[in-house]
């Protein structure tokens, strides 16, 4: 079904004829194609490319007038970034890709939605600064990661979750108005996210993001930190054989293997108490093995050794200010590792990290995780104390072997990550599993696994994930989380009374 001609013409008058299309080959390129979702997504009826906040507001008002649904999208990395119903247009932000400001004195950057990590990160890094780039790879939208979706940063141990770094926001409301939040609403610039009073920042994003349901964020400021390690990096080679180094005497990576997640947790907490390390993380060994190999064949060749060598790897990047401090940090690190029973990886394996320091910046090899061609899904994507998340990690062995030992999912039972933040005050969790999507039963197995995982956590009253969603969709979990689905529904209704934004 195509849009009524009059609606198309109105939209065209806003963005110009070059920035709107309903051609099939254009629409086909903007359908969800993520392999983990084994059913086709429909096409949008048109796609428009606004160039400014004002154009976005005008598009939203046109949609409201004519009852057309709309979805904002940039990278298309999540299923909600696509049309799911008839009579829907995609608002694509590829033209709104400007870095509007990098303010070194006040330590923030202002970006539009189309700005990718690969665009912003080098700009701030060369100024000696950094930010918490959610671990989505270099093609991800900075604004979407920080303002609109959940997302944790693999290196947030010495900083925090990206949500802490969202500052002033400009957004187009579902009614087509341009709303500014924080200090911006008082005309005091971008630096503070909080309103003077009940903060509208709370509407923009919670633990998870709103994925555009409460408005389309068209500009936001993000806070900047000092970069860990030298501002200059050195690269050589061509992907997938490229190398990126942090030279100098104050950057060093160590990787240890553990046999108990509780011991990993003790190490994380002890290092955090001493504020030692720029990155401390228990990473998933399956994606890591994929990232450490250049092809599927190489992966299968080495997977046996890797799964023996580091089923529970603790990755530590030290990046202090001086050689003396590096020695001090190493002394504490090795004390902690000794006390907690960690075993250092063989040098040939540990060296991989030193040659791929991009891992500690924007995790730029992440796409190789998809190399095996199966489907994958992250679950238990919640946050809590290190202690609690280690208990959740322990509980996985109670049910996962029924699936890994029978081939229903990939045999990698320890494939979860725990990433501390704020020096171990809390952490994020993610259990990532993969399955063979060519197996006709695989979708059912995936659903069974998700159900067992969730039931285990609910039986233990473990906070492995936040609740989410509105109304009926969020009711099942919301009832167990202080009826938050009802409050979320009321907020959504207050800001989007006609529910025109895609749900």
């Amino acid at each position: 079904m195509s849009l009524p001609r009059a609606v198309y013409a109105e939209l065209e008058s806003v963005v110009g004829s070059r920035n709107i299309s309903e051609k099939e080959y254009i629409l086909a390129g903007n359908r969800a194609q993520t392999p983990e979702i084994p059913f086709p997504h429909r096409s949008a009826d048109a796609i428009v490319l606004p160039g400014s906040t004002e154009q976005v507001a005008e598009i939203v008002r046109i949609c409201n007038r004519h009852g057309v649904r709309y979805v904002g999208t940039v990278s298309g990395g999540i299923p909600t970034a696509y049309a799911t119903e008839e009579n829907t247009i995609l608002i694509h932000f590829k033209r709104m890709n400007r870095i509007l400001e990098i303010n070194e004195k006040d330590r923030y950057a202002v970006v539009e939605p189309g700005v990718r990590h690969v665009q912003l990160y080098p700009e701030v890094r060369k100024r000696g600064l950094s930010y918490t780039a959610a671990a989505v790879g270099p093609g991800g939208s900075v604004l979407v990661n920080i303002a609109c979706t959940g997302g944790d940063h693999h290196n947030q141990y010495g900083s925090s979750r990206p949500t802490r770094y969202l500052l002033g926001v400009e957004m187009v409301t579902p009614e087509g108005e341009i709303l500014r939040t924080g200090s911006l609403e008082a005309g005091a610039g971008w630096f503070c996210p909080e309103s003077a009073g009940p903060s509208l920042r709370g509407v923009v994003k919670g633990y998870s993001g709103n994925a555009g349901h409460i408005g389309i964020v068209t500009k936001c400021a993000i806070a900047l930190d000092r970069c860990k390690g030298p501002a200059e990096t050195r690269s050589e080679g061509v992907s997938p054989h490229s190398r990126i180094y942090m030279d100098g005497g104050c950057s060093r990576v160590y990787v240890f293997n553990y046999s108990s997640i509780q011991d990993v947790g003790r190490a994380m907490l002890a290092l955090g108490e001493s504020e030692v390390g720029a990155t401390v993380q228990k990473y998933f060994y399956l994606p890591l093995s994929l990232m450490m190999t250049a092809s599927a064949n190489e992966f299968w060749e080495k997977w046996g050794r890797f799964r023996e060598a580091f089923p529970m790897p603790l990755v530590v990047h030290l990046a202090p200010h001086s050689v003396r401090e590096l020695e001090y940090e190493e002394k504490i690190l090795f004390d902690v590792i000794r006390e907690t029973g960690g075993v250092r990886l063989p040098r040939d394996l540990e060296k991989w990290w030193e040659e791929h320091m991009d891992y500690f910046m924007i995790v730029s090899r992440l796409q190789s995780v998809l190399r095996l061609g199966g489907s994958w899904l992250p679950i238990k994507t919640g946050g809590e104390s290190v202690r609690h998340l280690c208990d959740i990690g322990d509980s996985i062995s109670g049910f996962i072997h029924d699936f890994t030992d029978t081939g229903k999912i990939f045999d990698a039972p320890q494939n979860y990550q725990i990433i501390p933040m704020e020096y171990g005050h809390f952490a994020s969790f993610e259990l990532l599993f993969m399955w063979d999507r060519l197996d006709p039963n695989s979708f059912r197995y995936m659903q069974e696994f998700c159900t067992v995982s969730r039931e285990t956590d609910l039986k233990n009253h473990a906070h492995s994930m936040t609740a989410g969603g509105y109304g009926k969709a969020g009711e099942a979990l919301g009832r167990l989380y202080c009826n938050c689905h009802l409050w979320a529904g009321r907020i959504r209704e207050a800001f989007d009374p006609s529910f025109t934004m895609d749900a």
Partner: protein
Amino acid sequence: MTLLYPETAADVREIILAARRSGKGIVPVSSGPPHFHGASVNPEADTLDLSRMKRVMDIDRRSRFIRVEPGVTFGELLPQAAEQGLRLNHPFLPRPSKSAVASALEQEAVLIPKYQYDYPDPLLTVETVFGTGDIFRTGSAAGPGTYEENTSDKVIPWGPGPFDYYRFLTAAQGTIGVVTWATLKAEIAPSASRLFFIGSVFPELLLDLAGRLLLDRVPDECVILDRNAFAMAFAEAGREDEFRTAAAPWMLLCRVCGYDRYPEERVEIYSGYVKDACAAFGLTAETEPAIPAAPAEIERMLTDCDRRETYWKLKRGAERELLTLVPPSKAAGVLAEMTNSFPEAGFVVSPQVQGRAFRIECDLFLEDTASQTAAADEALFSLAGRLVPLGAYFDRPYGRLPELLYRDPLALDAMKRLKSIFDPDGILNPGKLCF
């Protein structure tokens, strides 16, 4: 005006439901007197005094948090935290009767900016009774299950789900809900430390130095004082002039710390960073400045509340203050306008959120007469009006400051929509802020 003294969240709920039926407003108050900002003063409302809700529910060293009810004061809590090897990220020299929960909810300036990642920090999770009478828990305290069933430490502040409910409660002056407990982030108490005094005639130099040090996450406590505030804060009664004369016009107090492992070594290394940074600015970091007080006593006071008989801000009988938040690029200009306007005032400049902003506090120390305080209120409001175009942001708008805010009709409308969800009858602190 009626005084109500709930002891449990259920009591608070009953009171709110009764208020909804009667239409009579209520205003929560947690701290003991004196009250400085007037947020808890409302002639249109009954006072909901939470001072009897005094349980210290949890002090957890492993996960570094403290959970308390709103009646627990800094005077009571700081020693209990210290017994467990923990400390709170509290404001500069707070009064002992100040509620630790209220301080966090009000987003008071913290003294250790390296531990503060955004403005509500160190507030983590809360239980609240909304103006509807519903009891709600924020972040990971929400669930799954009841408070008792939920096996987590209840420390993740965000959510539940796609909204940050705790941000609706901070700086809201009790207009959205009544908080019945809060989880606060706690930090490891240092095993060794060194306090540096860095003096200068030029406050802008100290602002830049603080920013430089915090970019590298060097200091723990970090605050800039002018000589008036320094004297009023640290001198024994009657010796303020002596302190004022001896102190540098502006002073950055900056403490470096070592924790459980090799603490002295960390202090040495980080002292070197402080000295190097000072040298780059042409400044000197002293540990034994020429002031009539033992540095150890200053350090002790800096890490505690003011336990003296008379609170430091009230030595002359009364005090009026103006609080503002500025980004680093605006701090020098705003501070210059403030000091030019009130050269006799005391100034406390607290770097916040890792040094990405400064909270500036202008303290007028007054005799307790109606004429003096009224004149001070008027003069400070006038000053606030002059500061707005210079980039000052009044994110904690007490008294008449709301008159300078809420000029964006869309943002105002959005805040009113929020208010109507959580307090549909407008019974919580009616008339405050923009409500």
